[in-house]
């Protein structure tokens, strides 16, 4: 079975064609301009993963942008956001501070993406 996918690894947006066997295992990936596209297509057919970005509240007011430091299973994105929204970040946290370790047992940490140190 052939399946078409838009690669999201980089802004090129390659239109990948994935050849799946009867057990939904990837036989071949066509049209990828790089190795990362092949890896993306393989993962996307088996277990789609996404990096989550958003904002978390700061202790004492305001918000700070955050992200997961690696991709997590796509179906956990909304749950991950809900955990992030309830996690308060210290007002002087430097950029890259881990605010949630191993979020939802995904192996990914949620880290801040803006430097609050020396700002407030």
């Amino acid at each position, binding site marked *: 079975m052939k399946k078409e996918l838009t690669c*999201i690894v980089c*802004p090129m947006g390659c239109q990948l064609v994935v050849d799946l066997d009867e057990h939904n295992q990837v036989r071949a990936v066509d049209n990828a301009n790089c190795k990362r596209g092949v890896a993306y297509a393989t993962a996307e057919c088996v277990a789609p993963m996404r990096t989550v970005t958003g904002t978390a509240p700061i202790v004492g007011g305001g*918000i700070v942008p955050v992200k997961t430091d690696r991709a997590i299973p796509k179906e956990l994105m909304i749950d991950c956001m809900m955990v992030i929204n309830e996690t308060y970040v210290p007002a002087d946290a430097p950029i890259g501070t881990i605010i949630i370790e191993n979020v939802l047992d995904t192996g990914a940490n949620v880290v801040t993406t803006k*430097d609050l140190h020396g700002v407030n």
Partner: protein
Amino acid sequence: MISIDLVIVGGGSAGMSAAVAAYDAGLRSILLLERGNALGGILLQCVHNGFGLHRFKEELTGPEYAYRYETQVLERNIPFKLNTTVLDISPDRVITAINSEDGLFTIRAGAIILAMGCRERAKGALNIAGTRPAGIFSAGTAQKYINIDGYMPGNEVVILGSGDIGLIMARRMTLEGAHVKAVCELMPYSGGLARNIQQCLNDFDIPLMLSHTVVEIHGRERVTGVTIAHVDEKRRPIPETRQYIACDTLLLSCGLIPENELTCGAGIPLDRVTNGAIVDQNRQTEIPGIFACGNVLHVHDLVDYVSEEAEIAGRAAAAFVQGNAAASDREIALRTDGKIRYTVPQRITAADAVSVYFRVADVYRNVQITVRDGDRVIYEKKKAKVTPGEMETVRLSADHLRTLDGNCLEFSLVLIDAQEEEQS
């Protein structure tokens, strides 16, 4: 009046990159003027990832990308003023600016780099019938409310326009608990990146309604709904296809316009297609010593390209001040065929290698990008697909440019084979 070698207007990604490049080229008397309360510009509200893949070979969020450049500015002790608005730039490079600390002040600049960025087109709002209740936002305004101020602007959302900011906001609002009911796009194709349609719409089953527009807004105090309709090939709404969607929020993502009031005030000629200054390969405008880069020059897809362009301008401005600017030995005009809408730069005045950026007018498949010097083809490249939403590049080598017969390069798009298109 104080004198400074190089004044940069705008402290976003273009301004910071230009400042760092000028410093690294040996310039020390630099001043960066920024209207906002922090360096970083629009990157600060772009909390999503996907920035820096070309520059840093890793995927950064907007604030992280800004932080890397801010760090470079701070490490070099390049002076900057925040909360400072430039009011006027004169053709002889006198800048008038104002802030609450210094009041009104003027600076005589050896060179100026324009890096003011762009703003959102509000046009979509003006042509829609109905009431004007609360709940109508540009996508970028909604982005600022959510990502900087921490407020959700609404719960039930329709987005008009499928530019990247609209797509990014569809995902962002969904992740924060809103219900995005539809993204309507007037054109038969999206202006956004393919990856954003996948990861921002398809991931959340948000319908992308191509060839659709909003024809009426409903509600008195607050938006209660919108009426959308299919449009024909001349983009006229088809009355029988009108359809009501209940919602409390309408976001407009209808494109970006370079912010060139200061440029016009200085008497710098603009390109009617890009709405940015006409520049040479150094990003020098038609007024010597005034340069432009980033989204004020033409709207970019990727910040990586903004940084690259700003470095060209930064190095060239430093050379201008230091008196090292290469004398221009030629004047080559870059022309386009309509399928290619514009090029940046618009003119070339030296025989060094140069990258030419351009956008196409429509979606074309199986094309050949061709550059001609008179009747002679000096460059060609095949592409399976080009779209208006994705900027293209042609790299002309010094060899290409050294041996030109004429003083004009014609950029055109040749459709290779219409039949192949149907098969693919």
